[in-house]
């Protein structure tokens, strides 16, 4: 089944890296197909960032996202620019401390940035918390695959921090959006 995932936030949060990691998990560790794209333009750090990935069991022909099933929104501007038109049957994970709007579709509140700071001591892993919550709530890739892909993608020496962030994300996802 074709699933389209869109991440948005601000430049510097690791939005693109998160989506590349998700695509990597699907394509390299779950034996699925993935096509990852991102908005590409003269944006600056702090501006809205958006990246998407299509994941399917079958080869992906049309490579552009038309109507995402799953949103992960990590900034208010990201919501306004890339989340506000979410279709009604989509599911949206919002970083509840950073996004004050809520969509018409089902929303899951994940306090990723606050949690990253409070429990893990580093805000920078908020995107990995979100990835964990996404995987726990949607099963778009397996937990094993996302863990391997995260460990592939993060700088050496930060593996344990990122693993903890991912596990905390799994827990938050389970609590906030039971399907």
């Amino acid at each position: 089944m074709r699933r389209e995932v869109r991440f948005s936030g601000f430049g510097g949060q690791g939005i693109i890296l998160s989506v590349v990691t998700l695509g990597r998990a699907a394509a390299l560790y779950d034996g699925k197909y993935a096509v990852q794209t991102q908005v590409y333009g003269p944006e600056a750090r702090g501006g809205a960032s958006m990246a998407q990935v299509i994941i399917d069991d079958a080869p992906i022909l049309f490579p552009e996202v038309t109507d995402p099933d799953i949103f992960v929104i990590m900034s208010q501007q990201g919501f306004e620019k890339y989340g506000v038109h979410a279709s009604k049957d989509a599911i949206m994970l919002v970083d509840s401390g950073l996004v004050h709007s809520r969509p018409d579709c089902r929303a899951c509140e994940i306090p990723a940035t606050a949690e990253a700071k409070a429990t893990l001591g580093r805000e920078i892993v908020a995107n990995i918390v979100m990835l964990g919550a996404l995987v726990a709530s949607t099963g778009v890739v397996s937990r094993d695959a996302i863990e391997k892909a995260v460990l592939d993608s993060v700088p050496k020496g930060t593996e344990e921090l990122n693993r903890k962030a991912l596990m905390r994300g799994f827990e938050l996802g389970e609590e906030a959006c039971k399907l």
Partner: protein
Amino acid sequence: MSRIEFMQGNTASAEGALAAGCRFFGCYPITPSTEIAEHMARKLPKAGGTFIPMEDEIGSIASVIGAAWTGARAMTATSGPGFSLMMENLGYAVMTETPLVVVNIQRGGPSTGQPTRAAQGDMMQCRFGSHGDMATIAITPNSVQEMFDLTAKAFNLADRYRVPTFVMSDEIIGHMRERIVIPDSVETVSRPPLAEGELPFAAGDDGIPGFAPFGTGRHVHVTGLTHDERGYPDTTDAEAHDALVRRLYRKVESARREMADYEVTNPDAESVFVTYGPPSRTVQQLLHDRQDEGVGHLRLRVVWPFPEFALQEFADAKVFLMPELNMGQMAREVERHVDQPVIPIPKLGGELHTPAELASVLEAHR
């Protein structure tokens, strides 16, 4: 052991070049092709090659031509504005039969246009962009895997026919990431060597002279002027010019069957899409969703020299539909070869046609 990666198209193109033995990259980085230069800057020196940023695109293609004459497999990567600047020297490469590869990650034009958005607006330029009559080779990937495979293949075509070869990709394929299998090695062909006693621009029946790199003692004279078989200028003899230009043209055009690389779907169809590059993926989606044998698809991987015989495979075709990310450049070429109507479906601005858009054009012409 081959390795599997989740990789961006531009990076895959650079990897394909490295696998093919490319050992020289001269460049003037330009959006949206820059990742190719970045990857080559990191990898090429470790592979024993040379990476050199030049002062502009005129210099970068000149450096590639010089490197090719030392015997190296050489390339550059660029986009529209840089491609325009390269045109004069690309004509020189055609006239001097210099094998080289240019990857053009096409963006919206004319002029600086849309630096970060995809287009296919340079399809005529890669064929007719320099002055004078010339024939070139152009190939058009539609996936990250093909960015690797077809960049590697481009070196073989360039070396086999001694002609500049263009990988005409675009921002969509250049920047998407997909799974890719990188093989241990790729098939490579060598330039035909210049035999002892042969003149450096004398060619046999295939029209392709043997190649003697600089520094091997053959003292080849290389000029953009009309030249004789020794390589010396002969600029006023009508017959010499006629013979040279016809040979440069014929060596590519007469090999279009052996170079042909295309996919045919539903050859009995009456409505036939003809595509190259990323619009092919929209058509593949449309055909997959409809399961309608009345709709055919010809997907070209080698666009120049144009394989007009591929169109004849659709014997029952009543209409050819051509979605392109331009105003209908290759549609004009198809029109030249068929009696049926050819419907251009231009899309400008950087996004692909959606399957629904193509479905509505299809219905309007059935």
